[in-house]
Every structure is written in C-alpha cells, then in structure tokens.
C-alpha cells in the first residue's frame, strides 16, 4: 500500500501512509489511539475506500471497494471484538457469510450441506485445537480462546494470502496468548503475510519480524524488530516528549501511609455470596489505600465489585462503609453512600455515547449543577471546564460528544464523572483497557494521586504487571474465592524481587482447584 490518504468528515485520518508487507512475515502495525491504524485496515479490507493512493498485491494494482472483493483477493481480517453468534454451531459460524464456498461445490442445490462444511475445515480446525464434537456444538459455550480460534479458522477457510489480526489477544489469558502466538508462527511458515495490530508492545518482541509505526495519520517508520528495544518503539509511536512522560519515575505512594493503628476502615465486605459466582468473600479496604484484585477472567472480580455497587443482587453478605452497615441494593444508593465506579468495557458500559462531555460529567451528580430549581447550563459548563483542565482532557470543547473523543480521554471524562460525586471509595474495573500507553500512564498516575489525597481505591486489572505497579495491596481471586493476598506489594518487591511477586500472583490465580 502506498501513499494512502483518507479524510473523514473533515478529519485527515490518513496522510500518505505506506505499508509494505512481505508474504511469510509477521508485520506489526503500531501506533497510539487515533493514529489511523484502524482506518488503514478498513481500507485494506474494503470497508472504506481511500481518497488517494494505491494498493499493489503481488505487483498487481488492485481496487478494494467492498469486503467481498478483499476476500476474493485473499485478504482476511480477524476483528478485535469477537463476532461469534452464540446460538450457531462452531461450524456454522466458520461459514457464516461464505456459505457459497460450499454450495458452489454442490452444483445447483441452494442448500447448505453441513457435512461438506465439516470436511472442508476439519483438518484446519484440529490444528487450532477444535475437536470434532466442538465443531458441531453451539459456539456460545466456548471460552475466549476457542472463540478466537473459530475466528481464525473462519479467516483461513478462504485460504488468505494476507491475514489481518486486530488486537487478537484481547480477552485471552497468558497461556492462551502463547497458544495463539504459536498459531501465528505456523501461519507464517505456511507463507501467509500477517498484519498484526497490538497495544501490548512487549508481545511484539520475539514474534514480529517487521513493524510499521503510524502517528497522527502518517507512517513514521518501517523497521525490523530485531535490534530494537521497547523504548525505541515507544518514542517512535509517541514522539520523544510523550515517551519521556511514560518513562518518568512513578509517584511513590508507600511512604506517607498512615500506620495500621490509626487507619480507618473505609469499606468492609463480609461474606458475599452469589450462587455459582461468589463464594463467601470477605475483605477490607483501608482509607487512602489502593487495593488490587487479581484473578483470571471468570474468577469473579467484576462480579464482586458489581455486587458491591448494587448492580447485581447477592444471595448473602453485608457491606459496611466507615464502620456502618449499609444496604446498597441499587447503584444510585452506592453513590449516595460515597462510592463511585469506573466500569470495564467503556464503549458498552461506560459512556452514554450521545451525551456531550459536560453532560457526561454532570450526570452522576445533577444536584450539583442546579440553580433555583433548574439545571444550570453555566454551572454545568464551568464544572466541565474545571475537569477538562485538571485532567488535561483533549476535546475541542465541552459540548463535543463523548463518543468523538479517544479512548483515554473518554476514560478521563468517566473518572471526572466519578470524582464529581465526591466519593470516598472509588472502584476502577480495567481502567486502562484498550487505551494507548501514554494515556495509560496518565491514568495510573491519576489513580495514585487520588489515593494520596485520601480516597480509598479498588483496582481490577488483567495485566498483572499493571496491577503490581499501581496497588499497595493485592488480593487474588479464583473461582469466586479469595485464594491469596500480597499484604504489602512494595515490601514484598524489596524483599523477594519483582519477578517473585508476579509469579506468585499468576501461580495462585491459575492453580487448578484440587
């Protein structure tokens, strides 16, 4: 692809971007949020057409106007979000939208023959760990890795020359990621060109051969991965200014901790139970503390905090806030009692997409912008202006719709919304999911600052490194129970080293129940 440009409703999304991928290589496509990666991929997969530039496929100039044409040219894409239809079998999912691959073989019959389907994919499916029985079973029952495998098989059934993987590891556990990487190496051996988009830069090393880095809609570098370090990639992606910000020493939050004797218990969760999800969970949260909750997907982390916030019902257990037992029941009660939550899955659970930035910030505390009985626009925009400058939220103005902001800035708006309720306890569920490294660091620093100012904080993060980096104390959940605790993260790192702490957490969270 050379000199690809694309303007979107007046925004220059791509500006003469070049991308050269050879067959049989894994090519990492890197860039911060909004750099233009997705737009470039959309151009390549026929979801949108470029304003200028050309695409050459094996020396031939091609026009990719629809996804169908892309498919016929041998370009397959695996999207970041899983697009499995749960009620269809794995087999039907694999052939969804490409049924004619089969009916062509059958001549005149319009019917879809499932046995033909199975025959065609059986060997590929086996290779990706999908058994015969699973092929016929409903896809909804599979875990994230199996679903991902189904998508890969789906992409391979058309025998692609180019396979695009957009954040393929999202939602996968560590060992599942390794399996996926093995599959990627296999494909490379088969001569497929892989274009791989990821935010997790550490994954790139040892797997990708080359990388193209995009920044602000321009390709800034095409380079071999060999011989590069993480820092090199970061400065390519964000420029030297931003990478200095990322590398700056983290704000210490252990020194000024009040001693155990005079600390207040901000939150006490006792005997939380919910059939099949939470098994008798009790823990405390101290004032000014950052408590990390570790665990694999499905361990019950999100379910636990949803229960605390009153979003889901519990079968038993109690919550005390600063020593008083409170009956929460519904989220607005939790806010009344001084709690606030930044949910996971920003797009589906976090933002109210049509709301402006200022409406998004004020919604959790509408009484705060009332004047003589009515909502006051002036007060509302002043409030928003405060938070925009305080957290340096990048937005054209306070009336811009929140959905037009980048992921990191959306997250800052949601954090503003929570802070605006003046909470004593803040809960963050995967606060840095799907946002680029620069914003990630900003948000982690923000969390530490909030704790330093006396807020009590619970953080859930799937990346163990991130969790260790931000938490004072970590509890580990497995299958709905607390199976371990790191009492003081900083002390333990000093005494036994970082790797031991990380290994300990990973080990405890994944050990099979005996």
């Amino acid at each position, binding site marked *: 692809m050379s000199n690809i440009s694309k303007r979107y*409703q*007046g*925004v220059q999304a791509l500006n003469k971007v070049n991308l050269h991928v050879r067959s049989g290589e894994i090519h990492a496509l890197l860039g911060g949020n909004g750099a233009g990666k997705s737009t470039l991929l959309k151009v390549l997969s026929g979801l949108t057409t470029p304003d200028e530039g050309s695409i050459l496929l094996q020396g031939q100039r091609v026009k990719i106007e629809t996804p169908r044409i892309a498919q016929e040219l041998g370009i397959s894409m695996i999207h970041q979000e899983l697009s499995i239809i749960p009620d269809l079998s794995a087999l039907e999912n694999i052939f969804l939208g490409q049924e004619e691959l089969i009916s062509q073989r059958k001549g005149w019959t319009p019917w879809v023959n499932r046995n033909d389907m199975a025959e065609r994919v059986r060997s590929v499916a086996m290779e990706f760990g999908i058994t015969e029985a699973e092929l016929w079973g409903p896809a909804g029952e599979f875990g994230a890795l199996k679903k991902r495998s189904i998508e890969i098989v789906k992409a391979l059934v058309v025998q692609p020359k180019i396979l695009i993987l957009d954040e393929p590891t999202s939602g996968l556990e560590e060992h599942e990621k390794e399996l996926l990487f093995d599959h990627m190496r296999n494909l490379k051996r088969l001569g497929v060109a892989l274009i791989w988009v990821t935010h997790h830069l550490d994954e790139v090393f040892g797997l990708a051969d080359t990388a193209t880095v995009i920044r*602000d809609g321009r390709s800034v570098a095409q380079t071999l991965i060999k011989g590069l370090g993480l820092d090199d990639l970061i400065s390519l992606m964000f*420029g030297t*200014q*931003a990478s200095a910000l990322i590398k700056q020493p983290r704000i210490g939050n252990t020194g000024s901790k009040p001693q155990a004797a005079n600390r207040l218990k901000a939150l006490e969760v006792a005997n939380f139970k919910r059939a099949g999800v939470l098994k008798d969970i009790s823990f405390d949260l101290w004032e000014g503390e950052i408590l990390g909750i570790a665990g694999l997907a499905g361990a019950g982390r999100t379910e636990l905090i949803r229960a605390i*916030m009153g*979003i889901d019902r519990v079968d038993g257990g109690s919550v005390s806030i600063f020593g008083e037992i409170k009956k929460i029941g*519904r*989220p*607005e009660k*939790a*806010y009344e009692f001084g709690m*606030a*939550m930044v*949910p996971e899955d920003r797009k*589906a*659970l*976090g*933002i*109210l*997409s*049509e*709301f402006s930035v200022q*409406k998004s910030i004020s*919604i*959790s*505390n*509408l*009484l705060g912008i*009332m004047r003589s009985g*009515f*909502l006051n626009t002036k007060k509302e925009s002043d409030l928003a202006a405060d938070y925009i400058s305080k957290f*340096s939220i*990048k*937005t*054209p*103005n306070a009336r*811009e719709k929140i959905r*037009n902001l980048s992921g990191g800035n959306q997250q800052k708006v949601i954090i503003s*919304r929570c802070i605006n*309720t003046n909470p004593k306890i803040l809960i963050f569920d995967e606060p840095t999911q799907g946002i680029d490294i620069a914003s990630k660091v900003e948000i982690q620093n923000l969390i530490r600052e909030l704790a330093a100012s006396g807020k009590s904080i619970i953080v859930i993060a799937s990346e163990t490194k991130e969790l260790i980096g931000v938490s004072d104390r970590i509890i580990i959940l497995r299958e709905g129970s607390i199976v371990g605790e790191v009492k003081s993260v900083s002390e333990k790192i000093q005494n036994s080293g970082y790797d031991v702490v990380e290994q300990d957490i990973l080990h405890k969270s994944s050990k099979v129940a005996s």
Partner: protein
Amino acid sequence: MFIFFSLKTDSFLILDSIRYYINDAVPIIIIAVGLTFVIISGGIDLSIGAVLGLSAGTSLMVSMWGWPFWTAILVGILTGLAFGLLNAVIITFLRVNDFIVTLGTLYIAAGALTVLTDKIQLIGTKDTNFQRISDMSFLGLTSSIWIALIIAMVLELVLLKLPFGRRIYASGLGETPALISGVNTRRTKFGAYLLSGGLAGFGGVLLASHLNSVQSGLAGGFELKAIAAAVLGGVSLAGGRGSVWRACVGVLFLTTLNQGLLLMGIDPLIFQIITGLCILIGVVVDRGVYKLALTVSTQIIDNEPQSLDSKEISS
C-alpha cells in the same frame, strides 16, 4: 407546505379553518408529548390512544351523572394514570417487553370502552361547565389550544431543565451505562410511563368535553399518529434523542397535511397513502440532513483538536 396549501386553496388561510383543525389536533399533541418522554427514555407506549378513548368515556360518564366538572376531569386523569401505572409496574418491575405490555393494555382499554359504551349511551352531558373546559375562547384561541400549549411548554422545560428530564435522556442512551453512573433508570422509566398515561387521561377529558359524545373505538389509532408525528419531528425511536417541541412540530405537520389535502378537494380515500408517503420521505430527508449537519459540524471543529495536539507536544 403551509404556504403551498395557502396558495392552492382559497379557504386554507382563513383563520377559522386553521383554528379548527389545530383544535382537532389537541388530543394528539397531548399524547405525543407524553409519548416523547417514553420514547426518549428508550421505551414505547402503544396504549395511549385507547387509554385516551377510555378516559374520555369515564369522564363524560361521571359528568352525565351530574357530578361537578372538576371531578370529571379528575376521573379522566385517574383513568389514564391507572393504565400508566399498570404499564410502568409491568415494564419496570417485572421486566416484560414494553411493546407487548402496552399492546396488551391497549386492548384492555379499548375493550373496556366498548363494554362501557354498550352499557351506557355516552351522549351529551348537561353540565355546560364540562363543555366549557375545552371550548372557552381566549385571545382568539380555544382553551384546548391554550392548555396544549402550556402542557407542551412546561414539559419541554421539565425535559431539558430538570434532573428527571436529563435522566430520561440518559436512560434512553443506554440503560446499563446510565445505571452504572448512578441514574435510577427504573424510577425514571416508571415516571415516563406514568406521565404518558396521565396525559392520555387528560387528553381524553379534553376530547370528551369537545365532542360531548363518546362511542366505542374513539381515538383508536391515535397512538400510531402520535408515534409517526414524533419520529417525523426527529424523536429517535432508539431512544436518547428528541424533544417535546419536535414532536409537536411533527403533529402539526401531519394535521396540516391532512387539512390541506382535504381543502384541495383530493379524494379522501387516498389520504392515507399520501400521509404514508410523506412520513417516509420526511424521515429519509431528515436523516440526510442530520448526516449533513454532522459533516459540517465536524468540519468546523476539525482544526481545533489538531491545534490542541501541537500545543501539548510543544509544551
């Protein structure tokens, strides 16, 4: 369109004619206002037409018993509120699909009116006070029109300037994200259905007072006119977008169209076809305009985020 009909027919622009057809549109305006709240909150209320009819019946009945006019008003509103409450409880507490619930209550209300009119001949109350509710005249307009105007203005204010209104929008944009941000979505939707029912009840009172006679099937299909009008005015059926005045503009558009066609001497048999075409064209054109506006507005703000970026890097 208004001007088009004025030129095409001699009688369109006569003040009496305008006053007359707007007066007829009042019940639809009133239920469209309540419906707007429900739709923006992410729901739908199909029962309003039938509830309006039934409320007209109950209030006229009470008036015919010789009760004072204000009790007749009260009974009409209470009838509407009862149905609003029924809808609200089943939809928000039992979590049953709003479409099917309000379809059910539509049949109940319509059926109840049939039974009522079968038992009692609802023609004519002698209470002139009751008739005067809708037919008094101030400054050249009937009291019905004034009442509709006041209701629309007050409720627009509620929607845009009160926390309840803001929560209506939030619930419609996404029930779960709204819930997580501390909005009591259940109470909000409950309120919307209650309001919709109450307004349908009051609309029934005005209609009964105006017609002074109620038959089975009265106001049947009003809910569909109100929905069409609201959507035509720009209230999004997906929830979260729209406003009261937009819905009112939609009602006025549809009724003006109807009146204009009538005065042009077009065969009433094909009215519905033309109305349907206008709804389709209106909605499609509106969507195009919305997209265009989106393009223009993003072009205007285009330069700002870039300048912000460069500032950040240079600082």
